[in-house]
């Protein structure tokens, strides 16, 4: 008996009756540089809170204010350690074990991460899953704080796809985050924080 795979492929081949293979049409990506100003403006436009920091102490004091006494989980990104964020009061970090991380993220009020890239023209954070950045730190807690190094800001999607033409070679999960989690499913009234964080802070250093 023909397998489903063979049957589907043979139906397609018979139906197409292709004489010769053509190359895929070229896609003209238009990479252009992004600025921190534009990026933060766009983050603000999609409902994120924004800050620019010059020194590590600026980042820490912004985060201390933003936490408002809430507990936080920090990712394993080296930058967070270098900036002294992992040593802040109420910030848990250093999780290598998934079960423990999940437990901590379920209870935490805030998740703190870096971003691998940021897209200026849409105000987007780009997160690649790795040993440094788990997926759930930016997902389970009701608030997310992202620290973005200035040199990680790209113009937009085209520049990202030029820099990372095959995300699957690097990670099992690349996620683009543009603003807080939202829904309009009931009467198209905007409600934030339906499943992911309803509060996002972006600090550019």
């Amino acid at each position, binding site marked *: 008996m023909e*397998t489903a795979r063979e049957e589907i492929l043979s139906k397609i081949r018979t*139906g197409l009756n292709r004489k010769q293979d053509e190359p895929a049409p070229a896609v003209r990506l238009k990479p252009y540089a992004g600025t921190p100003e534009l990026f933060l403006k766009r983050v603000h436009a999609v409902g994120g809170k924004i800050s620019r920091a010059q020194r590590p102490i600026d980042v820490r004091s912004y985060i201390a204010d933003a936490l408002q006494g809430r507990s936080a989980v920090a990712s394993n990104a080296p930058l967070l350690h270098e900036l002294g964020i992992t040593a802040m009061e109420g910030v848990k970090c250093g999780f290598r074990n998934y079960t423990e991380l999940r437990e901590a993220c379920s209870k935490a009020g805030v998740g703190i991460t870096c971003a691998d890239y940021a897209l200026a023209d849409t105000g987007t954070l780009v997160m690649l899953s790795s040993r440094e950045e788990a997926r759930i730190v930016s997902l389970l807690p009701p608030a997310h704080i992202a620290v973005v190094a200035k040199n990680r800001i790209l113009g937009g999607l085209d520049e990202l796809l030029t820099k990372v033409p095959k995300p699957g070679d690097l990670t099992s999960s690349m996620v683009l985050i543009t603003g807080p989690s939202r829904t309009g499913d*009931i009467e198209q009234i905007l409600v934030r924080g339906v499943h992911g964080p309803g509060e996002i802070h972006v600090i550019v250093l």
Partner: protein
Amino acid sequence: MIDAFEKKIGETLADPALQLKIYTNTATLVDKRKTAVSEEAFPEYQELRTKANALKRHAIEHLDLYLEQFEANVIAHGGKVIWCRDATEVSDFVLNLAKERQAKLIVKSKSMTTEEIDLNERLEHHGLEPVETDLGEYIIQLRHERPYHIVAPALHLTRHDVADVFTEKLGIPHDTVIENQTMTARGLLREKFLAADIGISGANFLVADSGAVVLVENEGNARLTTTAPKIHIAVAGIEKIIPRAQDLGVFLKLLGRSATGQPLTVYTSFLSGPKRTGEIDGPEEFYLVLLDNGRTKLIADEAKRQSLYCIRCGACLNICPVYRKIGGHSFPWAYSGPIGAIISPQFLGIDHTPKLPFASSLCGACADVCPVKIDIPQVLLDLRAEVSKSPLEHRAFRIFAWMMTHPAIYRLSAKIGLKLFFLAKLAPPAKAWLSQRDLPNPPEKSFTDLWKLRAKKS
């Protein structure tokens, strides 16, 4: 004969509250799209539509090659591909896997493809617990309904309807505040996410050169579905394939803007395979179900094949004067609106839905807003030609053709017709129509008479 389709249309038209909901909700989406694709906001729009059409055409014309490439890349990243001819093969696969892994609770993120094959009902029938996690889908699952709209499944409901079903099904106090309703769902569904054994998602795109599935959403439920449970199953129609990751530079810019007016949705996930060595979280098993379910039937027809280009943005529903009157549940399958009118008859077979290709005024608005430039009106016309005519209609057209090819008979019948015109007004269909309208009386002299007169004078 009045079928269920026509009965539902009658009910929808007779419900002023429902009419208002459909009209205002689609109008909001129309406005959002219009602003987002305007020349000032998005100058590349037309260029990208043309490119998207070319890419989809190319992908479908080389579908066999891209599916094989996609499969090889999924396997290379540690995932598995399951090819399914139909609904039963998909549910059999999920049921067997659930049995082997002793899984019961399944969280689901929004997927029209699983709606198409009634996957939830099939799984429930065998004792599994599939839970929809998109807020709109969760609400309609509680109501045991189909999605009303491709993008906005609960478009036909108000906060009052939601309060009613939450009280009835969840046993919570009646609350009509939308924020509270949303947070209730968040709390209940969060428990499901953390307890679920399997997560089932759909796929917005399958990327051949990466073996990746791309998911686009605003809520975060698709991220949770594909991250929290140990097993991720993505169910996708075979036509979802795009050649390269860089093609997303075309499609993502069009999809969000066409659907909800967003340059990018809140979350775009690019997922390839289970979690890798060193990564802290993510599913341990990754399965990609490739579904045919009638799609290969379209491949042989070069013109109708374009129906497979659809990226499910819903723009054609919002703009459609027919959808805006008859709503989403008047369509006989999961897919409604103009795109539903062309894919349902083709996937299911035209004899199952012979009236669908006629549920259109052919105004062409759907083709104007389609981000991948599907010529929906042309496909509708092609399908109409395929619907076998009724014997009565067939005979009427033969008499008409005979009259038109015999001028003397035509002239005679025109004369008699003018004299007996008043009778037509009394016949039942015209009578009902004319109860609200006036029909001008026919002129004293026909065009032929006037032409003769004119010829005499000159």
